[in-house]
């Protein structure tokens, strides 16, 4: 009888759960790099088209605003990565029959889903950072890279997108094969990121808009987290928590309805 046998099965805590979820994400990242590399190449291709095409058409005007474009594109890749990974992940879990096992876990589905979301955000940050570095090299641009502030502001910004991802995932659980339609929402992020939140205050309550504004000020103007007005930071947190909560509520309501209709897991 081995040591682990002698002591018997031990109860897993949230630490074990976090480790398992993050480790799985890590394994997939390192074992199947083609997805990540493909995403990076495609993102840089589109950025190249945007940058060189724009410079041909707009000339100096584009070059003058290139920092803003880079920051916006960085946030967009982060948002798309977080949104699609969480919504597609839920869709895949439904298809594979693993969603039910996560729904039945004694931890409850919420912690598992949030940890999976966090794992996706970490992975997305890694990929987007590579894209950011490549964009800076391509354009020869310099940005203020206060990592701590960037991570906090960008993370809070894309939490609202994670909420949208949960909502989309919930709708996928209910209506199944509509993932492609929901992916169109990603292009709406461009509008949200470029929304003139400074001039039109109510836009700040939309996902990404306020976060995009703060991230621009961080990366272009070098503003640190503690230098922002507390109200701005509070609003960023409120929008993040609000949309995440709303998205999760939609997911919960959708899965409840799917259970009533008997379609949870039926793909």
């Amino acid at each position: 009888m081995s040591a682990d046998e002698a002591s018997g099965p031990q109860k897993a805590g949230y630490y074990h759960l976090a480790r398992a979820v993050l480790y799985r994400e890590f394994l997939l990242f390192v074992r199947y790099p083609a997805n990540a590399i493909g995403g990076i190449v495609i993102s840089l291709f589109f950025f190249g088209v945007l940058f060189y095409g724009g410079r041909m058409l707009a000339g100096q005007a584009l070059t003058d605003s290139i920092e803003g474009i880079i920051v916006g594109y960085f946030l967009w890749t982060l948002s798309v990565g977080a949104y699609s990974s969480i919504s597609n992940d839920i869709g895949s879990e439904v298809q594979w029959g693993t969603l039910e096992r996560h729904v039945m876990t004694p931890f409850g589905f919420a912690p598992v889903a949030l940890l999976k979301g966090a794992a996706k955000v970490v992975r997305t940050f890694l990929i987007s950072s590579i894209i950011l570095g490549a964009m800076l090299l391509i354009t020869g641009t310099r940005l203020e890279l206060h990592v701590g502030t960037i991570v906090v502001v960008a993370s809070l910004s894309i939490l609202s997108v994670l909420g949208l991802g949960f909502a989309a995932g919930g709708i996928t659980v209910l209506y199944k094969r509509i993932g492609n339609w929901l992916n169109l929402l990603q292009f709406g992020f461009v509008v949200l990121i470029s929304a003139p939140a400074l001039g039109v205050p109510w836009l700040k309550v939309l996902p990404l808009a306020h976060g995009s504004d703060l991230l621009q000020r961080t990366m272009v103007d070098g503003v640190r987290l503690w230098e922002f007005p507390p109200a701005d930071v509070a609003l960023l947190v409120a929008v993040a928590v609000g949309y995440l909560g709303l998205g999760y509520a939609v997911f919960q309501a959708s899965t409840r309805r799917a259970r009533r209709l008997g379609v949870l897991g039926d793909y």
Partner: protein
Amino acid sequence: MCTFVYSGRTLSLIVTGSQSLRILVGIPTFAATVAPAKAACADRVIRLALLRGAMTKPDGTGGERHRTADRNGQPPRSADAAVAETEEFPTGTDSRNGVSERAVSRETAIAVEGLTKRFGTGTDSVLAVDDVSFEVEAGSVVGLLGPNGAGKTTLIKSVLGMVVPDEGSVRIAGVDVAERPKAAYANVDAMLEGARNDYWRLTVRENLRYFATVSGVDPDSVTDRHDRLLERLDLAEWADTPVRKLSRGMKQKVSLASVLAGGAEVVFLDEPTLGLDVESSRTLQRELRRLAEEEGLTVLISSHDMGVIETVCDRVLVMSEGRIIADDSVDSLLRGAASGTVVVESSDLDSDAIAAIRERFDITDIEELERGARIEVVAAGDDLYALMDVLSRAGVTPERIRTVEPDLEDIFVGLTREEDR
């Protein structure tokens, strides 16, 4: 006078008295008629033999007609062994699995009460599960049978909380799933039909560790359990192989292993042997029985493979049109129907004789022979005496008589057909 008649798989012993054949002793492949004076003794032989559903073959290897292996994957017992075992439980205790004896001390693992689920509304609505109630004792393996659309999957999903029932309650280990779902499902896992249930990009062992954690167990504390599972399911060699590289049957076994990885005490398996080859299916069945008997695992298993149900299960629930139409041990079901049909072959069986028999019995099959006919008559218990009387009065001297032992599939078809009427 004693006469042995052997025909194909059938060995018949005809014991005739002074004037007429009186009693048919129905052992599946061992038919006998005895004189009136032997009746009491013959009755006992009938009961003992039917109690075990024993089957003898001329070569003495034994084994039931459709049962190729017992629950432990061992060859079927000989008739002698079966009768000997039966002698130990002459009052009908279910010695096949010891259910009756163990049941008294067992706790109820699953209790379903008045479960009802209707999909849709109005005239288009479908009553998928109709007031279903049953209990499953801890450490037992219960089969769920039913034709497509009978409500099996809806029932399983309702018990698992994946479908919200309209009425009724489900308790797992005494905990109401509606009131305390996390606690109720803490030791429950499921392998559902058509689902992969695991991650194909992870290796076999990584899946076991991941799902052990998700089911609330520190994977480092169950490493030995995982090793044993991999060994017993013949997966050890593939432990570090990504699941996507395995064959369908292997994937199915990985799926089962991941369900068992966290040490669940109650598992629901929907078509667990689907796609498995015979050897893999037997391995899986053997492991299920071992887990139930040695580790007290409670299993509710749905399958269209009657052989699996008959081999693995202690008890069977048969569903039809959303209701449970039979709930009994496998042996009781087999025993109850064991003497249900008698095949009589005689050159005296002409249309008049058949008409005379038909007046009192259902004839399910008639096959005309070069001389006479072979008929299949529904006759059980005391009907056998009456049948012999009718044959005698019709001037029919049976040349071959045998009872047909139905397997679970026959019983299932019969039950669902009755329900459809």
